[in-house]
């Protein structure tokens, strides 16, 4: 089963995020960006740091340790010292709950990976 429960739909207001530990693998960070949910690995790709403790501004998450930034929908590393992209997860929203399919990447990440730019 690759589906992991992240939170209740009403648990995170827009602009909020949280860390979700689970048995299937690395901890996940779930974000509510203006009503749309996204999920990435919680661990920064640069150093040991939980992104859930960072600052979420618009669609960028700033790591609390060295202030590198990632684009949340695509997982792209955008600001020094972060250079490796974040692993993203496809988010499935039901009536009440938010899940991640940890076998799949987010659509935005796939689109970005296929983009010629």
């Amino acid at each position, binding site marked *: 089963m690759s589906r992991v429960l992240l939170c209740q739909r009403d648990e995170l207001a827009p602009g909020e995020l949280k860390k979700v530990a689970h048995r299937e693998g690395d901890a996940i960070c779930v974000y509510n960006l203006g009503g749309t949910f996204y999920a990435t690995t919680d661990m920064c790709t640069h*150093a*040991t*740091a939980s992104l859930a403790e960072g*600052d979420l501004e618009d669609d960028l998450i*700033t790591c*609390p*340790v*060295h*202030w590198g930034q990632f684009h949340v929908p695509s997982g792209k590393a955008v600001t020094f*010292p972060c250079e490796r992209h974040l692993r993203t997860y496809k988010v499935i929203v039901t009536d009440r709950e938010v899940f991640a399919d940890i076998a799949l990447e987010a659509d935005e990440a796939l689109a970005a990976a296929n983009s010629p730019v």
Partner: protein
Amino acid sequence: MDNNKHIPLRTIESTPALGNLDRICDMEEGRLSGKVFWDPAIYEQELEKIFARCWLFVAHESQLPKSGDYLTTSMGEDEVLVVRQKDASIKVFLNACPHRGNKVCFAEAGNARGFICNYHGWSFGADGGRLMGMHESKCYEESQFDKSRHGLREARVASYKGLVFATFASDAPTLEEYLGPMTWYMDVMLDMDEGGSEFLGGCIRSTIECNWKIAAENFVGDILHGGWTHDSAAKAMLGGPVANVGELPESYSVNWNGHGYEFATDVVGNAATLGEKDINKYLHVLRPKVADRLGEFRSRLIGAISSFTVFPNFSFLPGQNTVRIWQPRGPHKIELFTWVIVNKNAPQEIKDKWRRGAMMTFSPTGVFEMDDGENWEYCTKSSRGVVTRYQDLYVGLGMHTRLENSELPGNVFKGQLNECNARAFYQRWKDLLQAPTWADVPDRNGTLR
């Protein structure tokens, strides 16, 4: 067995007190040797036994309005960060990484999430100074490194009406005990108006090649120099000489634990030197309200001829509203940091006039400070000579002028042309250099001459 093993590395190794202090600083007789302004061994002891122990001024709360606002300054020669926390409190940290000691913040002020050391990427949160992480963090994890034990070193912090003080001495008395009854006089500057006071923006920094005590002593109680040293400035700003201080009807010198304030009761004597009629008018209009707030007596001090030093190196002039710290930089040099303090509720044009007025009088381009800096440098430099260094400097003015029955707080002396505050300052200086711990510092209040 090595006993040192059990003393934490952070404990300062106490050096034995110098043996000759009673001879070179005798405040019973009012005699001082220039050696105290020159000797590098004495200076090292001052850093350890005065600057690492006393409560030192680090900031005004108004400089750090928002969470994450910081400024850098120093406590003695120890560089520190002063940071507004998320819970609105203010914390003071050593501005030095606990890995190799590099400075972690190079700006003098700003707003930040935290501070990242340029050397190995150790990152400290502005809130709490905790070590958040490092570059190449995995290698630390393999060494079973405990991040929680390696945050920025934190000082004790306390405020008095907007002024933030800090100390690294765990055995120091509370700030309230440290300032004692002198706060009653500090209120004249800090609390004359219901809105309280604030610092204007910016800080002017300069360097004077003098011993720090000469500057601190000048403000602790030396108006004697005013009429002579500052004749040219007074004539330039007022068109006439400095008021004849000796002829003022009522003036005092008060001190407590080395802090000192000399003052007349002429309401606007200091303020008048700014040459801004509107400032005098502002103070005169405010005065009845100050009388309601602080009483009639203190309402006559709000801009009077006066000066104040909080031991060891924080000084201000009511009326000119200049606030400064004399940062020790070796025995023969200070860095002078100056700010301007105003009533928060004062009209903007009055604040601007104070900013310019302080600049015109007490700043590196100020017409008063120019003649001070010159005097202080040569008071210091002349002590290069061994014979000069052992000259018997006279600090005896005003012996036997203590007012035993005064109702004013602190140790009160008659008149401001009086070296009692300088004697109290040097006595406290010597007591701290001789006392192994805070508990050994004698209480001289009530016994000073």
